[in-house]
């Protein structure tokens, strides 16, 4: 995949969203380049998941632009695209990993079919090749390839999450959005998943926006960090900058609240 390393993949400008009277996003701006991982941290209700969903097109912003640098169609404002335009422009270039893997998988179809679906959607029509790619990806996410024909409803939570990640990454998207990908998993399972994500991000040169309330996850995975509170970005910078030298009162509170045993 050849990408122009100087151009960002995503630029958000002046994004705003309200639900009735309640302002959930105010004046959000961010940029993301290929190969970068940006973590958005904040407490519940800070608007971080709302922001992610707005970028993914799950809800329409009231104001602002979401500029996506597509592979073949130049720069497009995702906030203004129709559904069919979105599909044409983005294709399989935007992934979304749900916090609960069951929201991002077809539980009653086999693991192989789950990974194969984006390939089918991209127009691949060779059964053998689809199966081979699916088997390779099961290996990459450390799921026993012998389970390729099993439905994920029989998998553990950690395995389901790894399957969801494989399903999202199989078409090597330019941008991947992740909503608390390790939330709800046991600590050791989390650790394994984080290692996997680290490796995949590095190997595939992905641009990732990851929403998390866990500063440890941010420190492990992210180059840059954005702190949100009440729908606003209150601090942003390199991950180590924000965590080691927090400036804003809320950021300092957040950082000091992490248990260091």
């Amino acid at each position: 995949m050849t990408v122009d390393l100087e151009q960002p993949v995503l630029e958000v400008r002046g994004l705003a969203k309200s639900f009735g009277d309640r302002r959930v996003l105010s004046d959000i701006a961010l940029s993301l380049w290929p190969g970068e991982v940006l973590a958005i941290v904040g407490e519940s209700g800070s608007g971080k998941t709302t922001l992610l969903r707005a970028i993914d097109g799950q809800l329409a912003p009231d104001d602002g632009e979401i500029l996506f640098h597509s592979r073949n169609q130049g720069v497009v404002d995702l906030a203004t695209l129709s559904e069919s335009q979105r599909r044409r422009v983005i294709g399989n270039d935007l992934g979304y990993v749900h916090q609960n893997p069951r929201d991002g998988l077809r539980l009653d179809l086999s693991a192989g079919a789950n990974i194969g679906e984006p390939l089918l959607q991209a127009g691949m029509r060779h059964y053998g090749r689809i199966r081979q790619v699916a088997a390779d990806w099961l290996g990459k996410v450390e799921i026993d390839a012998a389970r390729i024909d099993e439905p994920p409803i029989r998998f553990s939570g950690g395995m389901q999450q790894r399957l969801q990640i494989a399903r999202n990454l199989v078409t090597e998207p330019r941008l991947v959005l992740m909503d608390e990908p390790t939330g709800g998993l046991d600590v050791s399972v989390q650790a394994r998943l984080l290692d996997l994500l680290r490796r995949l991000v590095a190997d595939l040169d992905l641009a990732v926006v990851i929403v998390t309330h866990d500063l440890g996850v941010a420190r492990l995975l992210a180059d840059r960090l954005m702190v949100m509170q009440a729908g606003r970005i209150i601090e942003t910078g390199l991950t180590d900058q924000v965590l080691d030298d927090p400036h804003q009162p809320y950021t300092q509170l957040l950082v000091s609240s992490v248990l260091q045993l």
Partner: protein
Amino acid sequence: MNASMAKADTTAGGYNFAYLDEQSKRMIRRAILKAVAIPGYQVPFAGREMPLPYGWGTGGIQVTASVIGRDDILKVIDQGADDTTNAVSIRKFFAKTAGVRTTTRTTEASLIQTRHRIPETPLKAGQIIVFQVPIPEPLRWLEPRETMTRRMHALADYGPMYLKLYEDIARFGRITTAYDFPTVVNGRYLMSPSPIPRLDNPKLNRSPALQLFGAGREKRIYAIPPHTSVKSLDFEDHPFETEGWSHLCARCGAADSFLDELVIDDRGTRRYVCSDTDYCDSRVAAGSGR
């Protein structure tokens, strides 16, 4: 109301010609025109109450009632046979309400209504075949919501349909769908051809006849205009195949028609006979029977 309403043919029992009132026919004809203009696209229509319940061919009957004319010659088959209860009932229905000539010979018919089979005898230009459809939506197995399947059709989001085929191959080594095999019409819309056997799918492709599909309970009409491409789904390395038999028809000796398996005595003796009764009869009459 126009005067022609008063002059409309009234047949036995005082019904309008072919049972439906003229306004209903107009509405259905408009739906049919739209369906023909967009091959394979499911057009919603305001299905009328018919004198038989859903599941018995009300959609097919409404389409037939809307296109039938006084000079038409009607054939009705059910699983290929002219002489099953349903085929007989529907044929009688139109004989009574439209006074049209009826026939069992495919070659003689100008209008054929069918449940779950296409006649073996190739259709000709000028013929119309009307299919009875239970579930018009080929994606329903995957997505129960109508709103979602409509979107999938609008966006040509058909990748998931291939998932069914993928799962078949993964589980059984081949695509096992035996009937109602999904097709793509005119390179655009995914269509359910109704529960016809796989063997019949190739007959849909570039047929010189007009093919109309009516679903009464679901209230959808779709169409394949003459000479339109209809391609059954497959994979590059698992191409579409039709089934074959190791038997010949026990009556006429045909090797290429769809065979019914009949149990003929209480010891379980089986005979394989053409499902298309007209085809079998013609072959026997032409002297190729056993």
